[in-house]
């Protein structure tokens, strides 16, 4: 068995299979189980190591040649693979409740394959092209037939497409800077190119205008999926750059730039989230804040940044998935995600309301929830460098918290005397319930995700230690 076949080609084949199936439940089961198996394989079966099962010997080889270039997924990639496919399984199981599995499972599998290929391709620079293809595939995922195309979708397409040329150019210039570090002009040019490319890719302020637009006009579960997977892969891509080029790694300016960019995203995203009346837009701003935290974690390189950034991915995905799942349930009932339309809905949809509120609290890093432990570690590390940074981060966090309190108040307050009742079906109740328990479990016992990080020290040659 080859690692490329296992983690890139099999998901594409599974996507093809799900396109042929009509029943939504079967699609969910196939997508979820395939992703879960791939995650477990990545977590527990090492690549390039012969395993014996009685008389049989079994080995997953790491490389495959395509068009004169090699695609390689080694042990160093297994941390990322385990996390991505494990979380993908969670997303797929939830897609049945959100009624989007016919779109999300096949497109999600192919998009994930392309993004996995992006960190398998050598030279890694070509990842920008594969990410662009994943972005292009996201468009039919976001726009169902018969629905108008929102401005957010167009802006998303434009901004993400513009990232690719900048990154490719920067990647071409960077080896030159590495070879002649004294060439200041070349260093400035490549830094500008790289910054612009990643600003577009990460949707750094002010380039994130498409996120709230997208999350207001499109299905929350699908938007949430896109807002989870693309920044996560972009983060891996940034780490790849920092790991390969010592002048980037040792630069004093890059961590500062990352910190400022992350801080602006946390503060602006948090403050705007507090004033949103549309819960989809609030989700969008929360995603912006989460991406800001990624950037803040990356600013701690080369010390602890990689570990914190990786550990932020799991709470982010869980929080956003539960938030989006709860929104999907509420939207199917109320038809709109405007707070005015959802007044008092907690009495008829208590599980979805609790799921939504807890996800919002987790996004704000509230104690006992999944967002708390790793956020705390990040704040602790940042506090040793700058207390002003912590002050501004807290402002952003209070913004998210205010948004959560507003949501809770609006959803639970009503002038009519509506009796409390459980209108969620069993599947919705179980999935949101499991999500809530997972949020608490990760908040109380963050070490349970440790097996996924066993290959982290070898993931990046220079950063992972």
């Amino acid at each position, binding site marked *: 068995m080859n690692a490329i076949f296992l983690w890139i080609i099999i998901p594409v084949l599974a996507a093809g299979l799900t396109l042929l199936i009509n029943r939504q439940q079967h699609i969910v089961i196939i997508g979820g189980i395939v992703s879960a198996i791939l995650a477990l394989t990545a977590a527990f079966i090492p690549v390039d190591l012969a395993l014996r099962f009685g008389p049989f010997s079994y080995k997953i080889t790491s490389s495959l040649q395509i068009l004169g270039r090699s695609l390689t997924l080694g042990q160093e990639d297994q941390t990322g693979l385990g996390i991505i496919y494990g979380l993908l399984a969670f997303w797929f199981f939830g897609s049945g409740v959100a009624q989007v599995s016919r779109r999300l499972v096949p497109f999600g599998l192919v998009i994930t394959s392309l993004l996995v290929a992006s960190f398998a*391709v050598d030279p890694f620079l070509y990842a920008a092209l594969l990410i662009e293809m994943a972005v*292009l595939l996201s468009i*039919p995922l976001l726009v169902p037939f018969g629905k108008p195309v929102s401005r957010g979708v167009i802006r998303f397409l*434009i901004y993400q497409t*513009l990232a690719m040329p900048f990154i490719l150019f920067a990647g*071409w210039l960077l080896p030159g800077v590495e070879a002649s570090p004294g060439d200041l*002009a070349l260093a400035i040019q490549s830094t500008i190119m790289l910054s612009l490319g990643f600003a577009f890719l990460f949707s750094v302020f002010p380039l994130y205008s498409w996120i709230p637009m997208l999350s207001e006009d499109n299905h929350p579960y699908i938007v949430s999926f896109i807002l989870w997977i693309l920044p996560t892969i972009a983060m891996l891509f940034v780490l790849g750059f920092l790991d390969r080029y010592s002048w980037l790694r040792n630069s004093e300016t890059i961590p500062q730039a990352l910190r400022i960019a992350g801080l602006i995203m946390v503060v602006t995203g948090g403050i705007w989230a507090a004033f949103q009346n549309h819960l989809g837009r609030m989700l969008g701003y929360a995603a912006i804040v989460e991406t800001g935290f990624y950037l803040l974690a990356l600013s701690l390189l080369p010390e602890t940044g990689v570990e914190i950034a990786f550990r932020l991915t799991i709470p982010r995905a869980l929080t956003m998935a539960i938030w989006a799942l709860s929104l999907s349930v509420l939207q199917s009932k109320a038809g709109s995600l405007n707070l005015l339309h959802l007044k008092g809905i907690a009495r008829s949809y208590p599980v979805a309301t609790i799921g939504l509120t807890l996800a919002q609290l987790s996004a704000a890093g509230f104690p006992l929830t999944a967002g708390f432990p790793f956020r705390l570690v990040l704040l602790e590390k940042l506090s040793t460098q700058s207390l002003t940074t912590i002050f501004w981060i807290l402002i952003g966090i209070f913004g998210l918290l205010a948004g959560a309190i507003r949501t809770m108040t609006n959803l639970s307050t009503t002038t009519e005397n509506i009796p409390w009742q459980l209108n969620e079906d069993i599947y919705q109740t179980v999935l949101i319930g499991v999500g809530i328990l997972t949020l608490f479990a990760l908040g109380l016992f963050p070490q349970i995700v440790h097996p996924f990080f066993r290959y982290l020290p070898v993931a990046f040659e220079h950063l992972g230690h």
Partner: protein
Amino acid sequence: MLTTIVSWTVSVIMLLTSAGLLLSRDWRIQLGLLAVQYLGVFWLVQLHWPLAMAATKLITGWMVTAILGITYNEIQGQVREVEENWQQGHAFRIFAVSIVSVIALAITPQIPQFLPGIGLQEVTSSLILIGIGILHLGITTQYFRVILSLLTVLAGFETIYAAIEGSVLVAALLTGTALGLALVGSYILIAPNWNKTE
């Protein structure tokens, strides 16, 4: 010498086609200009790549044009044939194109300093395409025009990138990106009107 003259002529054609895309209001003319633009890209790319590989740019470009053309033909009647609101601000657009062209010409001599082996014609054409493509993106909200602008920006990028990167895999991925963009363009033109076309 002849190659240089032809290349400069191609640069002028690139300016005319990209400006034409911005100014024209008829989708048939726009697609015609796009096809000519890809012919220019092919010429400039073949200066650095083997002819067979450079031909992929031409074939891809014309496939892109065909995809968009077929889509527009399918949805005739549901979208405006000629954009009425685009006739305003012609003078402004010509002025903006002039500014972009002057900036492109001013930057051109500096680029070969850090991209050795690339000719001024490729750089000029590339910068003009990227500049006018971004200008076009900045002043339109129409889906069709957005796709045309993105294709123009990518065509400019491919022209300059061909001089520094000759990998077959990159050529394949860039081809995939251009075709993907055209298919996405097709999709966003068709998807909102899907029930009507059925």
